[in-house]
């Protein structure tokens, strides 16, 4: 053995030893974790076997046999459990996406209200946040739902905006173009094209707000296109037909209550994130913006808000994930989300373990998608140097 190596050689030797040590340690930990998981799985399987409880995922192909109240695509009781779960997942997605959009909009508005110098505005904003953030979501949902079902009239005496909308215990029904999905796709496509065109054009002479202008134009064009589909192709209007209101598109009281409840509850937290983000921007930025002659609104939109976003986006992602997970409270007010469908399935076939694994996998993947998307957004807004 030569004398201890010196210089680079010694460093390399130490590094090799360190990597080896760390590798071994990590390998050992990983092995223990895997062994535990395998042991648990085997024990579960053995116990299920010993108690003669049926197991496995084969049931997904069996006919489900139960009806689901709200459908985004075709389903009937003869379809498979797999399709029933897909319907449930679509319902979860629908209320989550609608909730995220409304909660974000409300959250930004209320957050800005709280930052306002008008006592009334900031006071109202403060009250909103305290009320919705400090009462349990479950209670809010039940309250909204009970109010809706108690106060709204029966379908026979529905509140009617002649030929356009009906509001009753059956929910909100609105007239839609008779061409249905064609109208939706057409409107969406024209909105996208118009929005993109306006955005590209606007970027030439606007430094801030081009996205907002483009988005606004897109929504407007989409709306006009959708209406023109109705004007040209005729309308499908809601009408009372026996016990059912037929025609038009409908939003059930369950969906409305859940959507509203999730949005109000989450928007209170988002408002606080917006406020925290804005207040965390150094006061010098305000002073500098005002000294340059910007008005308060301009300074907020062009200087403070973009910087506040950087601070707000990571916690915003967790709020979105919370909203998705909270949507599982749907089951108390009878909205057929994934958990509600799963509950029914568990009782029809008794395979609780498998169904719960499915629920967890779905929520996990939905939230991973949110994490990835919000990660990309975050990378985009933090690209500029701090």
């Amino acid at each position, binding site marked *: 053995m030569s004398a201890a190596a010196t210089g680079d050689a010694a460093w390399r030797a130490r590094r090799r030893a360190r990597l080896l040590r760390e590798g071994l340690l990590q390998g050992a930990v990983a092995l223990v974790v895997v062994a535990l998981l395998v042991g*648990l799985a085997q*024990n*579960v399987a*053995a*116990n*299920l076997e*010993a*108690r*003669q*409880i*049926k197991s496995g995922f084969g049931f997904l192909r069996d006919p489900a*046999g*139960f*009806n*689901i*109240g709200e459908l985004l695509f075709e389903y*009937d*009781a*003869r379809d498979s459990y797999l399709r029933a779960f897909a319907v449930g997942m679509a319902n979860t997605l629908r209320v989550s996406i609608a909730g995220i959009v409304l909660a974000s909009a409300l959250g930004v508005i209320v957050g800005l209200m709280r930052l306002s110098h008008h006592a009334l505005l900031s006071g109202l904003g403060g009250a909103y946040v305290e009320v919705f953030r400090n009462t349990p979501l479950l209670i809010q949902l039940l309250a909204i739902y*009970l109010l809706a*079902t*108690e106060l709204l009239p*029966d379908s026979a005496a529905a509140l009617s905006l002649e030929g356009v909308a009906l509001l009753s*215990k*059956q929910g909100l029904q609105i007239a839609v173009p008779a061409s249905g999905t064609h109208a939706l796709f057409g409107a969406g496509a024209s909105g996208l094209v118009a929005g993109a065109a306006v955005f590209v054009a606007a970027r030439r002479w606007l430094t801030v707000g081009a996205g907002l202008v483009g988005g606004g134009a897109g929504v407007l064009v989409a709306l006009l296109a959708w209406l023109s589909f109705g004007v040209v192709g005729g309308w499908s209007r809601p009408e009372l*037909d*026996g*016990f*059912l209101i*037929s025609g038009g598109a409908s939003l*059930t*009281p*369950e969906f409305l209550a859940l959507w509203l409840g999730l949005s109000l509850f989450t928007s209170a937290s988002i408002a606080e994130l917006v406020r925290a983000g804005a207040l965390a921007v150094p006061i010098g930025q305000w002073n500098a913006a005002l000294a340059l002659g910007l008005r308060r609104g301009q300074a907020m939109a062009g200087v403070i808000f973009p910087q506040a976003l950087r601070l707000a986006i990571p916690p915003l992602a967790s709020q979105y994930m919370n909203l998705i997970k909270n949507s*599982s*409270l749907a*089951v*108390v*007010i*009878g909205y*057929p989300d994934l*958990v*509600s469908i*799963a*509950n*029914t399935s*568990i*009782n*029809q*076939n*008794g395979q*609780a*373990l498998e169904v*719960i694994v499915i*629920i967890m996998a779905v929520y996990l993947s939905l939230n991973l998608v949110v994490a990835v998307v919000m990660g990309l957004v975050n990378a985009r807004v933090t690209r500029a140097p701090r």
Partner: protein
Amino acid sequence: MSLNTLVTAAIAVTTLGLSATAHAGKTLDAVKARGQLVCGVNTSGPGFSNADSQGKWSGLDVDFCRAVAAAVLKDADKVKYVPLNSQQRFASLQAGEIDVLSRNSTWTLTRDASLGVVFTGINYYDGQGFMVPKKLKIDSAKKMNGVTMCVQAGTTSEKNVADYFAANGMKYKSVVFDTAEAITSAFFAGRCQVYTTDMSDLAGARTKAPKADDYVILPQVISKEPLGASVRRGDDEWFQIVRWTQFALLEAEEEGLTQANVDQQKASNKDPAVQRFLGVSEDTGKLLGLDAEWAYRIVKQVGNYGESFERNLGLKSPLSLPRGVNNLWTKGGLMYAPPIR
């Protein structure tokens, strides 16, 4: 509710994952050692299992728990009631949280063959029906095309109603709630035009309406719902005790033995069948792992099946259900016990 799902998951994972061996066979010893029978009942099922304002349980299913306790522990009051909703019930039994599930549960092939539980008998022959507000003027289930229907999650009703409407070429919209309480409040608020579940449950729910007379139960019965108790698989000794407890309740009614007259009958009735049943001449209990007076105590402490029925469901109770098919076979019903000898 997601909470229930979590509870189910927790029970399933903890018991299935962590218990080293599946236990089989020793429920009787465990119950005796504990000195208490743990009985799974309905959270709120008027007539079947319902807790009053003092927390005292009563009902047909509760009486059954009491009868098992009287036979096994010699005291009908030594029962701990575990209220369970429909999604929790079988998981709770599988996991060993309860000894007997006596919670108006329908006996079906799937449940009997694949849930790790086994039904011990039938204590109420029920069927699924419909309740509607009078003002809708629906007089037949066939005239319900297009209705919105309140259904409870995790029940056989969900499947039956889908089958019935498909068979009759009708459509409906379902609103599925988690608990019976949520359904009744939504139904009485007018969210649904129809509430469907077992006839006996409908009669119970109707007693909770703001004005019971505003609602009618339609005559059509669309399914067979034989309700009964169940136990875990793999313990035949315990299965026999629970099954024969139900038969003893029926046999007592058939022999004319009641809570009031059983002592006098025990002393004076010379009918060999009665003497055998009450443990005077023969020890039938020994074969079940019980003592000679097991059946006597059931009658003495709980009463016979007919008494339990009249007390909880019969015409003098708030539900005022007729005995109908739940009468003894000797009186034109379906209730029949094999001979106790």
